[in-house]
């Protein structure tokens, strides 16, 4: 059955096929249905006019180069993932203890007013008369 599909696929692609093999394939009902499906797919593909956006090829090529660069490092993927998670956790902790952040909080904000404390007074009574 598989050889019938290969014969018909080659026929659709315009490749040379053995006449005996083609007669045998067309004699098989399943192979004939497959031939019809091949033709339908080919027509659908021919009707599709959408084209890739400009620059796609360059971007694909760039990504491919990056992947090749990472691949050259030969770091196992689980190890790389663990390293990323540890870096994230560590980064969070470091941010809480960030010295510059504390210094900023220690300094008072700009004051809208500047007042003076009143000196302590032993008694609040302010005089009287008899």
């Amino acid at each position, binding site marked *: 059955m598989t050889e019938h599909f290969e014969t018909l696929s080659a026929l659709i692609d315009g490749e040379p096929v053995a006449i005996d093999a083609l007669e045998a394939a067309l004699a098989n009902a399943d192979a004939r249905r497959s031939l019809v499906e091949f033709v339908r797919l080919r027509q659908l593909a021919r009707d599709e006019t959408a084209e890739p956006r400009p620059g796609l090829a360059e971007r694909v090529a760039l990504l491919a180069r990056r992947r090749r660069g990472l691949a050259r490092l030969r770091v196992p993927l689980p190890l790389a993932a663990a390293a990323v998670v540890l870096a994230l956790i560590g980064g969070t902790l470091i941010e809480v203890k960030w010295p510059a952040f504390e210094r900023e909080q220690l300094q*008072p904000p700009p004051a809208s*007013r500047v*007042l003076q*404390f009143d000196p302590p007074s032993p008694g609040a*009574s302010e005089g009287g008369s*008899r």
Partner: protein
Amino acid sequence: MNVSTRVAVVVVCAVLGASHAEHASAQIVDAGFKGLVQIRVVSNPTSDGLVPPRNQTVFYDFLPGESKSFMVTAGHNGDLCRTGAAGPMPFTSPEFQAWAAQEEASAQYVWHFDVHMIEVKAGSLTFDLSWQRTSRAAPDERLRYSQRLTLRLDEMRPIDLLHSAPGKDCAGVVIFAEAGIRSDPSLLAKTLEWSLWASTGPKTAAHQSFKSMQGAVAEFKFEPLTVPGSENGEQMLFFGTVIGRARLDGDVEVAIDVNRLTVQPLANQAELIARFKERIGPAAAAFRKNLTAKPGEAVKIVVPTGLLRKTTDPVTGKVRLESVPPVYEMSVTVQARVR
């Protein structure tokens, strides 16, 4: 009329008086809290303490600008310790007017108090208190006194004192003025969020944040801060209390008390705690500031302070300590938000 009856009458009077309170002045200001003034008369039956003192209180919640009167009597039926108190007056009910007149006529001593509220702050109130004491034994002798009092929250100030002759059943009678503050019911659930900074220079500051309820006293204490320019590397420790009250207009009334303590940088913790406790005792005098702030407004308050310097007297050659102005002004910055 026995003591318990008098107390009941006084309470009724106070409630009725409060419910019929009339604004006596066009300058009455309602920020959302009132100054509570209580006139308390305490009679001490014996000087040996075997019989507990009895006391009666009359009170009124004043808005700034309001005025009310009170009356206190002592010496009914020949017993100085039989006292009465009534107010705020004048009574609107004829029955109470008749009762007050009868009380006044039957007492050996009668005090009339006039209270005029000046201002109510977050942690203190200021009022004018004028009073007059008359004695049935000496009708022409009238003791008058007038004073402006600023009392802190729950502070009690003695106003007048009468002693009995030795051997009498009553040791004496003391009259006190007491202060309290009452917030508008709509403000009682308010919470204040505080941010405080202490600073001894442009690079030496400490920050604290905490919360307090409406009118409650909140304590704070900063870590010792380096004092720029100090000879021996001394540090300054700022501590104190703050009271905040949200106002009806959305602003915040603040009363902040700050004390300071100079400590040696290598002082051990026990010594530090001992000195700190010594300074926060009942005799501790603090710098105070009352202010009204917008929510979130940062207000800087400069703390008067100086640095100790050793100098040698050119004449005697003796070393002495003198206070010199600090290199940088020291301050506490306060910021309050209402929740």
